[in-house]
């Protein structure tokens, strides 16, 4: 097990290295960063001075090492738009995004697993049909539309919840649900289909022969086996949460990283965009490692085959 974890972390580091190369290359391919900041009236001399002071006159590989060295020491540069260190900005905005994503994730789990399991157990019943409708809606409606509809119904028409911004628990419900809905649908369908497979296995038959109560067969014998499928999907969920947060934070004016990225893009603040992309990539790799370790925990066959 330990070897497996170490191996996964090493693989993760390799991935991060490749990503940093790509992010660096993209920021250079996107054009001269100076052109984006300085206006046409800037003199040649002025441009050259800035170029030198930022080290942009050096060869690319030297620039990369400088970038990486700074990255490792936590120096992500200074934002043009906000005129503050990027690290400080991220530290300020990240908690809001984590809060929203975590809420969306919990919503997903609480709704998706029970519905998925019950849909399989009560296959072809009205409950199953209802679940299917709910899932299709979630997977086909774009996140921003779900957000807007929820906002219109619960905030504008019913007035139960605030429309946007960050505050108490009431503020998180709508954006959290809107962000989680797509995943609810996906996980529910995955859980249902893997539960159906598991319910049909010989070991479930043996469990029934043993005389085990049906609820225990479902939640002990089947659920853990059925979890393996949806679990692989977990890292994908994270990707959806990241892209979703950019949309949902904008719709609900939620002051997180997503909203910050949109603001940075609008004002061509490449340094901020670059730093946030790098951060998302790091998080993504990290979540992948955690997923694989959880996977190995749930399914002992993976643990030992390594």
């Amino acid at each position: 097990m330990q070897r497996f974890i170490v191996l996964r972390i090493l693989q993760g580091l390799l991935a991060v290295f490749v990503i940093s190369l790509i992010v660096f290359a993209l920021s250079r391919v996107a054009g001269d960063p100076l052109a984006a900041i300085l206006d046409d009236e800037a003199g040649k001399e002025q441009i050259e001075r800035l170029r030198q002071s930022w080290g942009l006159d050096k060869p690319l590989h030297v620039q990369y090492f400088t970038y990486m060295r700074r990255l490792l020491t936590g120096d992500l540069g200074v934002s043009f738009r906000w005129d503050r260190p990027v690290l400080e900005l991220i530290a300020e905005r990240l908690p809001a995004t984590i809060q929203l994503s975590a809420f969306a994730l919990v919503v997903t789990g609480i709704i998706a697993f029970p519905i998925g399991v019950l849909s399989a157990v009560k296959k072809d019943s009205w409950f199953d049909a209802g679940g299917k409708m709910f899932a299709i809606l979630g997977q086909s409606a774009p996140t921003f539309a779900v957000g807007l509809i929820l906002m219109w119904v619960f905030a504008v028409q019913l007035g139960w919840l605030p429309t946007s911004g960050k505050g108490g628990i009431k503020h998180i419900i709508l954006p959290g649900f809107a962000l989680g809905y797509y995943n609810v649908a996906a996980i529910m369908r995955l859980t249902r289909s893997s539960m159906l497979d598991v319910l049909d296995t010989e070991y479930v038959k043996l469990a029934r022969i043993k005389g085990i109560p049906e609820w225990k067969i479902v939640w002990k014998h089947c659920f853990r086996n059925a979890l393996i499928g949806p679990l692989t999907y977990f890292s994908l969920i994270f990707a959806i949460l990241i892209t979703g947060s950019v949309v949902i934070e904008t719709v609900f004016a939620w002051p997180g990283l997503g909203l910050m990225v949109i603001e940075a893009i609008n004002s061509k603040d490449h340094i901020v965009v670059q730093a946030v992309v790098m951060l998302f990539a790091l998080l993504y790799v990290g979540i992948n490692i955690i997923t694989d370790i959880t996977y190995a925990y749930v399914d002992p066959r993976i643990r030992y085959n390594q």
Partner: protein
Amino acid sequence: MTAVQTATDTILEVNNLKTYIFTRAATVKAVDGISFDLKKGETLGIVGESGCGKTMTALSLLRLVPRPAGRIVEGEIVLNGEDILQKSEDEMRDVRGRQISMILQDPQTSLNPVFTIGNQLREALGIAHRENKSSMLGRAVDALRKVNVAAPERRLDDYPHQMSGGMKQRVVGAIAMSCEPGIIIADEPTTALDVTIQLQYLRLLKEIQAETGLAIIFITHDFGVVARMCDRVAVMYAGRIIEQGDVRDIFSRPAHPYTQALINSVPKLEERVDRLYSIEGQPPLLSNLPEGCRFAPRCPYVSDRCLETYPTSIQLAEAHHADCWALHSDWEGTPIAEYVAPTGTTG
């Protein structure tokens, strides 16, 4: 043996059991009116080709016919004097595992891959005896020892994928026997094992049976296993039992043309043949059964009567019955050839 004794010895009595599977296209008559009984400590073999309803019979006895398509539509299953078809689902859980248990065909898939052997064994034990964990651990070790698993203490923490097929099947056996049921249904328990392991496993079952007085229903298509294991045999064909009797009667005086053909199709060591014997044709579809005798289309003795009505049962010896018109005294067609047992077939 007197009649009174027979009655008290009988642990299971199945009367006219019918289990159908309802699909959109047709009704599959998987089990279509079978009757048999089982005495304490006895081994009954149910023999037949694949798809003749053997496994569905077994699942019916536990009321675990796959739902919602499958349903027991008629009949009685009397276990220790009570018809289990009248029981509620809750009451059935007291029957499963504790009174009737079952060993499945494929040990590779019949253990849950994500729980340890100990966990799965303790679970089965826990249903029978509500006790604390530590004494259950002792029971789990005992249960494994009973089925000859070496170093059982260490095996408890193993996962199924860490064990060999033969070992897994022993564990399945230990689970099936953990609650000391009166009846075990063994559904081709050795088909998935290799030949040397098969023999060990059969011997183990026999030993446990001798110790505990367990009754076994042995489902197989292997006549060699039947000869080794069973006291009585029921031969199934297309959802019905067409002949049943003592294992000696069935092997030395098989009456039904199908039984004769089955026994003839077992290859013999001492005979050199160019072509192995086989029964011509295919069994009928269980969703489209013929009016009369189900074996008639393949039977060498077939007459019009066979095609019209299903033959009534005829008693040939004390516990030897067969469903065949040609055995009735008023039969006018070709008489069934006297069966000559080849020398040294059953050993």
